[in-house]
């Protein structure tokens, strides 16, 4: 008797130790792969997420106290910055790349268009320190936070004592970003066979075309294969952005960029790493008529993609089924009150 109860206790402890984060805070959607982020090294709690969310919306992270993460990653546009091609930072200096939409980051292996960042916890260091973005550094940020009673309280609630450190600050920001999961689009509901949801004829045709022309790179269910590819954009000689090669220093990575997810794509214009396309029509024109050939062009795009104008509009109808209103309007993700 004693033995069995001991056994059950041990089992329970083992289960608790290995289980994924609290379901109410983070849930792996049905039929999705296991997240890449190691939650055991930064276990989610309500208090830490709230601290991270507060930091995300607070311009205290920037040198001039004017720019917050949300200045470039707004919740209403899938956390990207829509009005500007290239994101604006402090003193209105223009960054060299378009801010990507932030969602489903727990499944992402690397970050930035060229994968320069290999871990979500290290991500916030880049904008905090970049002279064109927030122009500060993490040691100064920690100093500023330490002086604020509001943060002393929030750190104490999250970590048990009011010590502010770089590690705690960055991990809290990660916690908030990890909770940005978008999995409730019409596409998802159709896949889950929820009653009352089915594709229209145009969407269904678009889905088939998408699977045969686009899904090798924009693979379901996350709509990215997490690889770097050259999708045939003609290099912009002013920006001269060499992409993945900057990180790997390999000639074979020239002009390759991370394949972005297409979820909520309807709202995250302008498109591509430099924001060169204003709308989805232009993107489809690119794929059907405008592929720039070069040594590193993906083999999947060497053969011309033939799309009639009806095909293109069907694909766009399908892409719009990836919009997730409940994600864009989720107050849990918004400015903390």
């Amino acid at each position, binding site marked *: 008797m004693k033995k069995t109860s001991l056994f059950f206790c041990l089992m329970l402890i083992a289960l608790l130790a290995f289980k994924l984060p609290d379901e109410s805070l983070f849930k792996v959607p049905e039929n999705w792969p296991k997240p890449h982020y*190691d939650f055991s*090294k*930064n276990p989610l709690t309500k208090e830490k997420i709230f601290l991270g969310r507060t930091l995300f919306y607070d311009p205290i992270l920037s040198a001039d106290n004017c720019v917050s993460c949300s200045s470039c990653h707004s919740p209403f546009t899938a956390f990207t910055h829509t009005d500007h091609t290239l994101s604006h930072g402090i003193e209105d200096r223009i960054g060299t790349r378009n801010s990507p939409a932030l969602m489903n980051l727990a499944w992402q292996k690397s970050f930035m268009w060229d994968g*320069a*960042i*290999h*871990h*979500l*916890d*290290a991500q916030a*260091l*880049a904008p*905090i*320190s*970049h002279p064109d973005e927030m122009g500060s*550094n*993490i*040691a100064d940020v*920690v100093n500023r936070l330490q002086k604020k009673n509001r943060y002393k309280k929030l750190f104490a609630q999250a970590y048990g004592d009011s010590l502010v*450190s*770089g*590690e*705690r600050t*960055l*991990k809290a920001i990660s916690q908030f970003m990890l909770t940005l999961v978008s999995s409730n689009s019409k596409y998802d509901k159709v896949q889950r066979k929820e009653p009352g949801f089915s594709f229209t004829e145009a969407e269904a045709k678009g889905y088939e075309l998408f699977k045969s022309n686009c899904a090798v790179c924009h693979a379901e269910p996350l709509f990215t294969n997490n690889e770097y590819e050259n999708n045939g954009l003609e290099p912009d000689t002013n920006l001269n952005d060499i992409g993945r090669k900057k*990180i790997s*220093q390999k000639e074979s990575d020239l002009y390759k960029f991370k394949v972005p997810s297409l979820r909520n794509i309807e709202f995250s214009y302008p498109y591509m790493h430099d924001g060169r396309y204003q709308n989805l029509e232009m993107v489809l024109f690119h794929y059907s008529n405008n592929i720039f050939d070069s040594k590193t062009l993906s083999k999947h795009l060497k053969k011309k993609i033939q799309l009639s104008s009806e095909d293109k509009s069907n694909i766009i109808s399908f892409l719009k089924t990836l919009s997730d209103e409940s994600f864009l309007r989720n107050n849990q993700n918004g400015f903390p009150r």
Partner: protein
Amino acid sequence: MKIKFILFLFGLIYILLPKKGAAQNLRLKPIWGNDVFQTEKKYFLSTKNDSFQISLCKFYLSEIELYKKGNLVYKEDNSFHLINLNDCLSLSFSLKGNDLQFDEIRMNIGIDSSTNVSGIMGGDLDPIHGMYWTWQSGYINFKIEGKSNSSKNKTGSFSYHLGGYAEPFLCVQQISLKTSSSPLVNINFDLAKFVSLLPIQTKPEIMSPSEMAVMLSKHLATCFK
């Protein structure tokens, strides 16, 4: 009253008495040839006419292990030490083991790959120490900055940030030093030897993982004795 005082005395004596099983201390001694090295002091390399004034030198020692006749006798847990030549307190530290018998110390200069890809950590590894690259992930293993009359930079400055956690630019180096067991082991770090190979004239700055960073890291590993 008296009893309390006697108890207090006993307590004091107990605290002041040397403990059995003295802790094992390591101390890093920066040297310039035969001299004690100082930051901000102007040095000359005898072989060339280069002058060097070093304002900052910071690096990581990690994965400290003690060996006796080639057998591991001690491995430090969570072994990461940020050494800052401008902060003498950072130059010595004690290991947790007592009365260790050993004839060899092995350690890494820098941070290994698996720690590098495990995200952000605290303590000496906290990025507030300025030893983490921001525009591209990864720890900076070794940083040296200063001035030299041979530098081509306008201000005569140089700065070398060595690091890189992935092949082909993996920079972490293991060193092994023969020593004898002693409660305080000194490790000399010869800066004259290190700077003698810096490409001060052609490349006064290295700020990212590269072939040159790997080459200099290997050279760095030979400067400890």
